[in-house]
Every structure is written in C-alpha cells, then in structure tokens.
C-alpha cells in the first residue's frame, strides 16, 4: 500500500510540477514578451544605429582615404616641384645652365685693375645679382678675376679685354641704384678712369652663358656630422 500510496503520489507531484510549470509558463509571456519586445526594440535600435554609424564611419574612412591620397599626390607633386625649383636654383647659382632675365649691363671702357673689377663684381653680388657674366664668361663662385701682367684681365683663365661688359641678372632698379649711389663704385671708377669710363644700362632681357667647365671635387667631402 505504501508503495501504491507512493505510486499515487507521483502523479500528484507530477501534477504539481506541471502546475508550477504552467504557472511559470503563464507568467513568462507577460514579462518575457515585454522584455523580448523591449530587447528587440533596443537591439533594433542598437543594430540600426550601429549600421548607421558603421556606414558613417565607412564613408568617413573613404573620405579620409580619398583626402590622404589627394594629399599624398599633392605633397608628392609639391615636393617634386620644390625639388625641381631647388635644382634650378642650384643650377642658376652655380652656372650649370644658361640663364636669362632682366638686370643691368655695366660697360667699362677702361683698363681697370683686377681689384677694381673684383670690387665691381662684389658690388653687384651685394646688390643681389643672381647671375653674372664678364664679357662671355659666366662668373660662378670659383671664378677668378686675375691678371698675368699682360693686356686685359683673365676670367676663368680666359683673357678679356676692354670694353669689359659685366652683365648682371637681378632687379634692374636695385642693381643700378647700388652702382650709381653717391660715393659708390661707379663714382669711384669714374674718378680714377675718367667720367666716360663706366656706363650702366638697364636691360629687360639679358642672356648669360653657361659656366663651361665641370667642377670636380678632389679634396672636399660632404661632412655628414653637421
């Protein structure tokens, strides 16, 4: 009987469990659905916003990449241009290329001394001459104005004779003013060699030749420590 009683009690327990389960099941939809709905809304919202922000980020990434590419392209072009400009400056300054431009032409029709010619060149450099030539010899940093005691002057080891024609590319006004200033080089030369010895002419288009010889460095090395 005991066993039967026990056997009978099993359905009861089962029923109880079933009831409890149902009760719980019944309670679930109320809370669960609400939660699920809420969750769904949140998720939808979150997912929507994530999708939106992902799209926005992707668009931003694309925009930034486009800008970066454009910037790199521009910088590359800018760098290349500045390198070309720098190369041209170096070529002009060192006489590695013929040059043209405005400036002054100084005609010295007198057998002036080496020092006077050096002073004249120095005056033009000081006044901002960008390129210089004496007769047909381009003057670069290595150029020497010299004499061997014979006629005329030696420039780049080439003999030049009066009238010396010194061509300087630069601001015609600045160059002319510097040359003709009171107490300046032209006045001094005219005092020494006569009032007709020096003539200064403004030019709108001078053409200066290339410095004809290659510069070979046998002793100087770039100092990497500086």
């Amino acid at each position, binding site marked *: 009987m005991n066993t039967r009683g026990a056997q009978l009690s099993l359905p009861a327990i089962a029923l109880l469990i079933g009831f409890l389960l149902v009760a719980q099941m019944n309670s679930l939809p109320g809370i669960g659905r609400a939660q699920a709905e809420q969750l769904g809304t949140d998720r939808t919202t979150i997912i929507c916003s994530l999708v939106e922000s992902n799209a926005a980020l992707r668009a931003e990434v694309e925009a930034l990449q486009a800008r970066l590419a454009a910037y790199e392209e521009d910088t590359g072009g800018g760098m290349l241009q500045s390198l070309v400009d720098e190369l041209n*400056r170096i070529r002009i*300054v060192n006489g590695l290329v013929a040059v043209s431009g405005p400036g002054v032409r100084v005609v010295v029709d007198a057998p002036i001394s080496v020092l006077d010619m050096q002073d004249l060149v120095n005056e033009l450099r000081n006044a901002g001459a960008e390129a210089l030539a004496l007769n047909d010899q381009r003057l670069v940093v290595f150029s020497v104005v*010299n004499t061997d005691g014979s006629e005329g002057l030696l420039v780049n080891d080439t003999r030049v004779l009066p009238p010396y024609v010194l061509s300087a*590319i630069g601001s015609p006004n600045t160059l002319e003013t510097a040359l003709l200033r009171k107490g300046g080089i032209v006045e001094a030369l005219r005092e020494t060699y006569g009032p007709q010895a020096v003539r200064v002419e403004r030019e709108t288009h001078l053409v200066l030749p290339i410095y004809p010889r290659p510069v070979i460095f046998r002793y100087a090395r770039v100092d990497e420590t500086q």
Partner: protein
Amino acid sequence: MALIHAYDLRDVVNLLWMAGSEAVSINEERVVASTSIYCVGSTVMVNDTRMAPPFVIQAIGDPAAQEDLLRNPAYLPELKDRVHRYGARFDIQRATDLRIPAYQGHFAIQYARPGGQE
C-alpha cells in the same frame, strides 16, 4: 680705420679659388656664388653677417698649391705690406681635416630663369 679691409678678404678668397680650392669660408660664413664681402663701417659683412677681426679663412683644396700662391710675393702685396708695417697677423696653417660650414642663407632667385631663350 680697420687694418684688414673687405677687399683684402676678397683678394685672399680670389687667390684661394685661383689655387683650386673647392670650399672656402670666412669665420663661420661659407663663401658661395652670391657671397659679397662688404665693408660696413668698421666691420666686414659676409653673407649679411657682420664680423670683425680676427678673420679666419678656411679653404679645402691642395695645401701645397694654396700655400704656394698665398706665400707668393706677387700676390696680396698690399695686405702683406700692411702686415709688415703695422704688425697685423697673417698666418697660414696647413690642416688635414678642415670642416667648412654649410651656407646658412637661401638662394633667392626672382629674376634669373634657366635657359638662354624665352
């Protein structure tokens, strides 16, 4: 009146180029194509830098060729005469490892264009 003039320095530099020098500086100023050595009052201006004696001129090149020209009585006669008469120092020293500074300025090219034609 300064014992050493701007033209003395120009003459020395000219002579150093004549001796085949490859790089020249006056004090800390590199001599470049646009360099002018200019007397400004009692100072000398090199590349827009004012300087006063002593002037230390450094030149990289063949030391023998450089020294030969510098010591040649035919060159720098005025400077050597003033040195002799007034006791200014004009020393020539050979060096095995000179360091010549880079040009600190800028080659501002506004008027000259490369190429002989338009």
